[in-house]
């Protein structure tokens, strides 16, 4: 045997086994470089996560600090703090109660309305090719890239012209304006979510349904839409959360009238304006909690729905 099986590197360096050219890395440096790679990913990505958590922690710390200094000042001590906690004080304020109520209602209505336009638009964009599709795609991005104040101003101007102006009296600076302003922005996010949801559903399934005798509506309702449920939950959540944080268009198009068009983001602004930072932070924390509750509910509901579907009949 002179083939060099025993000493491939010495006899045939170019045609030998995987190690014919020598090892690309020594085991030690390979493990180290892999560790360094993941450490770099974690550090770069982690800075953003740290920022988010730190912001929320700062809010909570500020509240605790305020409560502590009040406890020190007040002869009744901690009993007074518990009774006059900034969060509880905020919750007891009828103006803030109204703002919470309006926020919950308007965000929910907006999220439903957003899904109502997002499902058909997302499906059309995903499944059909037509002249002007690229233009439509660009138009749908406008609310995402436009400064929020500009959207509010544009809505205000739009309602100067018929047929919009016929309804202006009952919409502009009234409660419906809150929903219109939130909807104008939130829908764009819902549409994007639904389009990508339908993009990920194999159109072949609908083609099979059509070959089995379905019209397009039946193929959509019986095959595509049921598979898009998870995306719909995400679109709803995103639209809801987006609406909760909406402020610029609301300020211009709906105004910031207490007990009328005031939502939680407006409350934060109004409380800041009068120098009541404590109440502003308390309301901010309420918004954080509301957003977390909605996220958790929809995630848990989405996950349990998925489980019901896939676990419908467990594998024997």
């Amino acid at each position, binding site marked *: 045997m002179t083939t060099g099986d025993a000493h491939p590197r010495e006899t045939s360096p170019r045609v030998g086994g995987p190690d014919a050219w020598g090892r690309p890395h020594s085991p030690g440096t390979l493990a180290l470089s892999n560790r360094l790679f993941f450490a770099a990913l974690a550090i770069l990505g982690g800075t953003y996560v740290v920022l988010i958590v730190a912001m929320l922690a700062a809010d909570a710390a500020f509240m605790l600090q305020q409560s502590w200094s009040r406890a020190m000042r007040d002869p009744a001590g901690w009993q007074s703090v518990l009774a006059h906690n900034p969060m509880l004080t905020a919750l007891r304020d009828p103006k803030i109660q109204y703002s919470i109520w309006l926020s919950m209602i308007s965000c929910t209505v907006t999220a439903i309305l957003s899904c109502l336009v997002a499902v058909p638009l997302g499906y059309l964009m995903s499944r059909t090719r037509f002249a002007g599709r690229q233009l439509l795609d660009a138009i749908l991005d406008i609310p995402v890239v436009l400064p929020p104040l500009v959207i509010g101003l544009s809505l205000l101007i739009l309602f100067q012209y018929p047929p919009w102006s016929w309804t202006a009296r009952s919409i502009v600076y009234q409660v419906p304006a809150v929903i219109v302003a939130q909807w104008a922005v939130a829908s764009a996010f819902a549409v994007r979510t639904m389009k990508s949801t339908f993009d990920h559903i*194999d159109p*072949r*399934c609908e*083609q*099979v*349904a*059509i*070959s*089995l*005798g*379905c*019209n397009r509506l*039946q193929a959509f309702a*019986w*095959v595509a839409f*049921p*598979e898009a*449920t998870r995306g719909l939950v995400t679109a709803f959540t995103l639209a809801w959360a987006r609406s909760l944080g909406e402020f610029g268009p609301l300020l211009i198009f709906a105004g910031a009238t207490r007990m009328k068009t005031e939502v939680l983001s407006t409350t934060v602004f109004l409380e800041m304006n009068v120098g009541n930072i404590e109440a502003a932070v308390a309301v901010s924390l309420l918004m954080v909690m509301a957003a977390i509750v909605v996220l958790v509910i929809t995630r848990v509901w989405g996950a349990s729905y998925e489980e019901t*579907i*896939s676990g*419908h*009949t*467990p*594998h024997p």
Partner: protein
Amino acid sequence: MIEMRQVCIRSGAFQLLDISLRIPTAGYAVLMGRTGSGKTTLLEGILGLRPVTSGQIELCGIDVTAHSPALRGIGYVPQDGALFARLTVEEHLAFALRVRHVPAPRRKQRIAELAALLGITHLLPRTPAGLSGGERQRVAIGRALSGQPRVLCLDEPLSALDSQTRSEICQLLRNIQQQTQVTTLHVTHNHDEAETLADHRFELIDGRLHTQ
């Protein structure tokens, strides 16, 4: 019967030219060709999922060239099965019957018949998640046959299966064809399948159809 007369189908820059074929009633035809030779495009032309630029397609003596896919009455089994993720196996078998408003007792009877024929009675309450490759194809075949189509089109139905399952499904396809007398067009690139199943063999080379 499936008959194509001088059919041209365009798919982007690729086109199938002057395709003519005739598969007699209850015949089992196998269409072969290399990957990218246009087998699926031809099948989609017959199904009506892709418009033909010229020529004529007849199914059982009826010109269906201008018909919508929903009105052609073709059972279609795509490559990966394309099962409906949210429906149970039973709902898959009931799908074509539901579209046709078949009464529930008749529907149940048909599902039981089909499930027995395909050996999937034990799978009826399950969803596609967790079904094996062979089981998925049986369900896809059952779904295509439930409306009792006159024509069955199979697009590489065995390509993702192991050899044992492949020969089982081959045997099943043969049995089904003998029992139902459905005119079948089976697309594949596998010579063994063609040997086992074909009454008629066609091959697509460079966009043109050759009878073997």
